[in-house]
C-alpha cells in the first residue's frame, strides 16, 4: 500500500519535472524554439527520467528484496535459547516472530518461559527492523528523486543534447527487455538440459532413444529402476508421429484448398467474412477441441466403426468385423482428425498470406499469355508460393507434435507401438503430463524422464522451426 502510494507520488513528481524541464528549455530558447538542439519535450523527458527512474528502481528493489533483508537482520543475532533448538525449529521461531510483528496468524507452536521472552524481544525487534527498512527505502528514494532532478535540471540549456540522452535511455530499456527475454529462455533450456542429463545418468540415452517399451510405472519399484526398456521412448514418438500424420492428412489439403479459394477465387465480401472467421477459429483453446474430440467425435467414430463391423461379421471379412465391433472411444484417428481440424485455420491463414505475397505481376503475366485462372493458379501461383507453403506445413507439424490437450483426452494413455489408427496410442506430450501431474518424487527417474522427453521434443520442434524459417527467408529474398 505504502509502496503504491509512494510510486504514485513519484509519478506526480516526475510529471512535474517534465513540465519544469520543458518550460526551462523553452525559456532558455528565448521564444525561438529553433535554437534548441532538441524538441522541448525531450528536455522535459530528460528531467522526468532522472527524477523518476532511479527512485522507482530503488522502490522496486526495496519491495522485492526488503523481506530478505529484514529476515537477515532479524536472524543476525540468535539468543542462546533459540540456538539450542534444532535448525527447523529455529526457522519456525523466526517466522513466527515475523508473523506476530506483522499481525499475521503464527504457527501453532506454543512458546513458554525463556523462549517466550526471547520471542517477545524478537517481535519488538522485527517491528523496529521493518520500520527501519521501509522508511530508509522511502527516504532514500525521495533523496534519489530530488537529487536526480537537481542534477538534471541545471544541465538543460539550449545546446544540451536532450534527444540523444533520452534516446539512450529508451535504447537501454529496449535492450534490457530483450536481454530479459533471452535470459529466461536460456534459463529454461539450461534447466531442461541439466535435468535431462541427470536422467541420462540412470537411463542410457541409447535405451531411451531406441528402446521400444515405455513403462515408467515399473521403474517405480527399486528393484526395477534400470529394468531394460522401461524407458524406451520409441512408442511415444511413434504415437506422436502417427497422430501428426493423421492431423496433417486432414489439415494440409483442407487448409491449402481453403487458402487457394480465399486468395484466388473468393470475392471481397466473402473474403472479408471468412478470413476473420478463420482467425477466430485459430484462437479456440485446444482444451475445447479436446472435449469436442472426447465427447463428440470419439463416440461418433466408435458407433460408426461398430456398426460397420456388425455388417461384416459372418461374411468373408469376419475377422475385421469382429475387430471393428470392439473399437473403443479412444483412438489415434479421433485425436488426429480433431487436431487436423484445429490446424486447418492455422495452415489456411498462413498459406493465404503466402499466396497473397506472390506478386500480382506474375498473375498478370500468366493471364496475358491466355492462361485460364486455374492454369495460372496451378502453374504460376502455387509453384511460386510452394516454398512458403512448405514452411507453413512444417510449422503446422511442429504444432501438431507439441499439442497435448486433444491427445490426452482423445487418444488414450497406453504406450503402444502400432500404426493402427483405430488403436489407442499415446504421445510424448501426454506422457510428460501424466509423469508430472499428481504427487511425485522429483528425483526418481520416472519424473526426470519427463525432462528427457521434453528435451527430445524441443530439439525436434526447434529443428522443424529452423528449417521452416530458413525456407521462408529464402522465399522472401526471391521477390525483393
Amino acid at each position, binding site marked *: 500500500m505504502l509502496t503504491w502510494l509512494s510510486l504514485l507520488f513519484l509519478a506526480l513528481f516526475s510529471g512535474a519535472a517534465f513540465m519544469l524541464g520543458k518550460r526551462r528549455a523553452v525559456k532558455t530558447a528565448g521564444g525561438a524554439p529553433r535554437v534548441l538542439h532538441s524538441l522541448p519535450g525531450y528536455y522535459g523527458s530528460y528531467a522526468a527520467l532522472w527524477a523518476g527512474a532511479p527512485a522507482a528502481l530503488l522502490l522496486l528493489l526495496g519491495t522485492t528484496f526488503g523481506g530478505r533483508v529484514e529476515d537477515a537482520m532479524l536472524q543476525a543475532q540468535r539468543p542462546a535459547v533459540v540456538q539450542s533448538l534444532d535448525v527447523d525449529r529455529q526457522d519456525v521461531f523466526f517466522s513466527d516472530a515475523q508473523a506476530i510483528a506483522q499481525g499475521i496468524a503464527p504457527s501453532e507452536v506454543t512458546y513458554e518461559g525463556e523462549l517466550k521472552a526471547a520471542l517477545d524481544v524478537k517481535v519488538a525487534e522485527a517491528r523496529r527492523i521493518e520500520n527501519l527498512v521501509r522508511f530508509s527505502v522511502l527516504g532514500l528514494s525521495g533523496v534519489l528523486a530530488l537529487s536526480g532532478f537537481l542534477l538534471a535540471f541545471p544541465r538543460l540549456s539550449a545546446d544540451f543534447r536532450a534527444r540523444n540522452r533520452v534516446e539512450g535511455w529508451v535504447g537501454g530499456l529496449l535492450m534490457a527487455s530483450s536481454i530479459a527475454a533471452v535470459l529466461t529462455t536460456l534459463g529454461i533450456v539450461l534447466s531442461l538440459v541439466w535435468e535431462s542429463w541427470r536422467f541420462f545418468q540412470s537411463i542410457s540415452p541409447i535405451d531411451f532413444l531406441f528402446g521400444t517399451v515405455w513403462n515408467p510405472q515399473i521403474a517405480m519399484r527399486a528393484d526395477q529402476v534400470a529394468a531394460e526398456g522401461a524407458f524406451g521412448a520409441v512408442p511415444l514418438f511413434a504415437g506422436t508421429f502417427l497422430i501428426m500424420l493423421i492431423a496433417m492428412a486432414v489439415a494440409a489439403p483442407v487448409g491449402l484448398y481453403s487458402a487457394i479459394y480465399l486468395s484466388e477465387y473468393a470475392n471481397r465480401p466473402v473474403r472479408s467474412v471468412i478470413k476473420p472467421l478463420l482467425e477466430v477459429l485459430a484462437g479456440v483453446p485446444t482444451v475445447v477441441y479436446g472435449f469436442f474430440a472426447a465427447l463428440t467425435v470419439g463416440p461418433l467414430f466408435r458407433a460408426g466403426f461398430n456398426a460397420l463391423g456388425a455388417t461384416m461379421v459372418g461374411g468373408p471379412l469376419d475377422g475385421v468385423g469382429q475387430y471393428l465391433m470392439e473399437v473403443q472411444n479412444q483412438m489415434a484417428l479421433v485425436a488426429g482428425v480433431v487436431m487436423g481440424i484445429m490446424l486447418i485455420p492455422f495452415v489456411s491463414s498462413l498459406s493465404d498470406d503466402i499466396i497473397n505475397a506472390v506478386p500480382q505481376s506474375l*498473375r498478370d503475366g500468366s*493471364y*496475358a*499469355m*491466355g492462361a485460364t485462372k486455374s492454369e495460372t493458379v496451378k502453374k504460376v501461383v502455387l*509453384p511460386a508460393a510452394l516454398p512458403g507453403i512448405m514452411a507453413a506445413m512444417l510449422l503446422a507439424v511442429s504444432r501438431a507434435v507439441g499439442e497435448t490437450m486433444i491427445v490426452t483426452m482423445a487418444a488414450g494413455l497406453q504406450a503402444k507401438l502400432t500404426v493402427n489408427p483405430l488403436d489407442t496410442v499415446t504421445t510424448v506430450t501426454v506422457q510428460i503430463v501424466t509423469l508430472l501431474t499428481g504427487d511425485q518424487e522429483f528425483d526418481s527417474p520416472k519424473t526426470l524422464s519427463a525432462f528427457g522427453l521434453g528435451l527430445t521434443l524441443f530439439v525436434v520442434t526447434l529443428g522443424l522451426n529452423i528449417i521452416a524459417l530458413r525456407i521462408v527467408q529464402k522465399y522472401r529474398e*526471391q521477390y525483393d
Partner: protein
Amino acid sequence: MNLNPFALPLVQGHAMTTASPDDSVAAPSIQAAAPQVYAAASTNEIKIHAKDVNVFYGDKQALFDVNIDIPGKSVTAFIGPSGCGKSTFLRCINRMNDTIPTAKVTGVIDIDGSDVNAKSVDPVILRSRVGMVFQKPNPFPKTIFENVAYGPRIHGLATGKAELEAIVESSLKKAGLWNEVADRLHQPGTGLSGGQQQRLVIARAIAVGPEVILMDEPCSALDPIATARIEELIDELRNQFCIVIVTHSMAQAARVSQKTAFFHLGKLVESGSTEDMFTNPRDTRTQDYITGRFG
C-alpha cells in the same frame, strides 16, 4: 531533347516485311516465319479499330470516347502524362481489364473486324492472339526454357518435345536472346539481368504466335543500353506483329513508332503519323506536351 524522329539510325519504313500467316495462332507458323513476301501495303491495313471506348473504374471514368485505328505490321506509340489512361486503353485491347472487378468497358474494339468484347469471344483465346509485355519484367520463377514454353504448353501448340524445343528456340531468337542464354536454358529466368528478363518476357509472348503485342512502358525499368537493345528488337519485330507501345519517353516514341497517339486526362487528343505529330502537332496540348511544357 531531340525530337527529330529520324535522328537515330534505325532504318525507317522497311519496305520488306515478313508476312506471317494471319492465323498465326497455329504453331507451325512460328517456324515458317522466314522473310519472304513483299508486303509494304500491309503496313497501312488497319488491324485494331476502336470506337467510342469509355472505361470506368467503379464510379470514376478513366477513358472518354476514345476512337482510334491501329495499323497492323507497324508500331503505334501511346504517349501522354501519367494517369491519362494509356495503360487502361492498352488493357482494353486484350481484355486484361476483366481481371479488375471494378473496371467496366463500353464501346467497340475490333481486331480484324471482330469485336473483342463480344459475348462469343473467350478472353483466354483473345489473349493468345494479343500478347502483352509489362513495365516491370515479370518472368515466372521457372527456368528460362519453362518460361518460354509456358504459353505453347497451355495452348497445346506443340505435339512433342522436339517441336516445343523448336518453338522455344525460334522465340528466343526472335527476341534476340538466344545467343545469351542458349547454354543455360535450364537456369532460372529470374537470374537474368533486367534487360534480358524483358526480352525473355517478349520471347514468352512471341512463343504463342500472337498477331498483336502490347507493351506497357517496357523500358521504364531498364538502363539506357538495355533500352536501346529493346528498341532495336521492337523495330525488328514490327515486320511480323502489330505492336502497340506505351512510353513516357517522347524520344522513344519518335525512334520506334510509325504512328503516335496522344492521350490527355482520359481523352485521345490526337493521333497520326509519328512524323506529323512531332513536327506538326495540331492540338496545342500536344504541342505543349511534346515540347516539354507539361507532363
